[in-house]
């Protein structure tokens, strides 16, 4: 029996527009994964719930992209992309900092980050923002 929760990519982006990072949590084994699939890749259960994840994690690697793969992103280059290990479990590949700003060449991985959200070309995306040292 599949749960009637919206586990689709559209739900992910709708969550971003509301400042939330929606992920999928298996109700059987508690594994957390990206939305967009109907089965847990750890235990194969179909009992998946949509959760709003804690917006913290660690930037583990990053790269400054100088050539955009799509025309609508060309005006943003160069922009920084990173891999973030969320405290909730999964990894994300997202922008590091607002892609419309100049790239900060002085701050790279690894670093503690908070997930924030920016709207670009009519869609809201998650971005990693460096957390100040505590």
């Amino acid at each position, binding site marked *: 029996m599949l749960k009637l929760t919206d586990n689709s*990519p559209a739900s*992910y982006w709708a969550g971003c527009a509301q400042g939330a990072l929606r992920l999928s949590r298996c109700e059987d084994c508690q594994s957390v994964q*990206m*939305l*967009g699939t109907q089965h847990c890749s750890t235990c194969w259960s179909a009992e998946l719930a949509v959760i709003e994840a804690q917006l913290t994690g660690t930037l*583990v*690697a*990053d*790269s*400054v*992209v*100088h*050539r*955009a*793969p*799509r025309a609508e*992103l060309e005006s*943003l280059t160069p*922009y920084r*992309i*990173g*891999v973030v*290990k969320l405290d909730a479990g*999964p*990894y*994300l*590949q*997202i*922008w590091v900092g607002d*892609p419309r700003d100049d790239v900060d060449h002085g701050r*790279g*991985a*690894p670093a503690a980050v908070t997930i924030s959200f920016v709207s670009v070309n009519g*869609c809201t*995306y998650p971005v990693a923002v460096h957390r100040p040292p505590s």
Partner: protein
Amino acid sequence: MTGVREAVVSGAAALDGHAGYAGWSPADLATRVVIDAVRNAGLEAAAIDAVYAGDPLVERHSDFSAVVAQQLGIQPRAGGTVARGGATGVSLLAIATQAIAAGHIDHAVCVWADNRRSAARGAAVQTLAGEIAWHERACGPLPATQYALITHLYMQRFGATPEQFAAVPVVFRSHAALNPAARHRDPINIADVLDSPMVSSPIHRLECALVTDFAGAVVVSRDGGAPGPSVRISGVGQSTTHDNLTAGGDLIEQLVTGAAHTGQTAFRQAGTSAADVDLAMLYDCFPIAVALQLEMFGFCGRGEALELVDAGTLSRGGPLPCNTHGGMMSCATSGMLHVVEAVLQLRGEAGAHQLERRPARALVHGNGGVFSTHATVILEA
């Protein structure tokens, strides 16, 4: 020993990487190179009972191997189309080898051809970028970005430098200089690489695989079934670890790839080890791929791969010549050409770029996706 050793490569052929086959479809390229490979094997068309084909990027077919078979005018009993990214070429060989070992067929052609430059100029990279998972491609990563992120992790863990990575394409360009079929043959040095435009830091343009037309084919036969010189397939291995980068936990956390498994499997079947390999044909889409393959196969310890490059180990005169045709950054796209080059080197038929000391045992590896799919084959003269 396993039945894998019943299979040999009896014929091989490739089309030049720089010719630009404008107007030729992938099927045209595949058909041409299969005809060349079958003739190289000394076989007639009727002898071919399987066609295994790599899926072209620029065209969609329900089964590309059927298109090739039809153009060849043959009706094979087995076959299929394989899409495993950069692992496709070596995977074709593994599949054909296993079909022969199982007694299903006697002669298979394995072909991978595409006109990525002439038919899809500028679109090939976009197409590949579009294959990145939906939640990752939103922020605009290039295929190079996926490997740049792993390069960054490697630099953090092992202290590797941009100069060390830049030395990889320099070595392979020196090999391409001797290969008339290579697209780029002019010598380059480390400064040239680091001065080339940054694509996705720390990867520069000269550290990226070329986008070219290509076609390569081999005939895999039951041992003794073809009249010409053959190369024994002594071990094969395949693995899949993940699809998109952020699902690759072992890759991100340990810098371990599926090549560790494929290498162990192939070496075990062959009854040999890295120490006995004297030609390495490694998938070189970006320098980090070469570094991790060297370590996964046990040619060196963790974090030591780029020291091998510095020491000249991978050069033509070194103990482990690597990518003697020039590889994907200088010769042409496609891991299939690595297979063909290994066969020619082992047979002593590589022409102007034949190694002075003819190799006896080659390892050929293909790597697809973001270190997602892997295939290894051990070939022996």
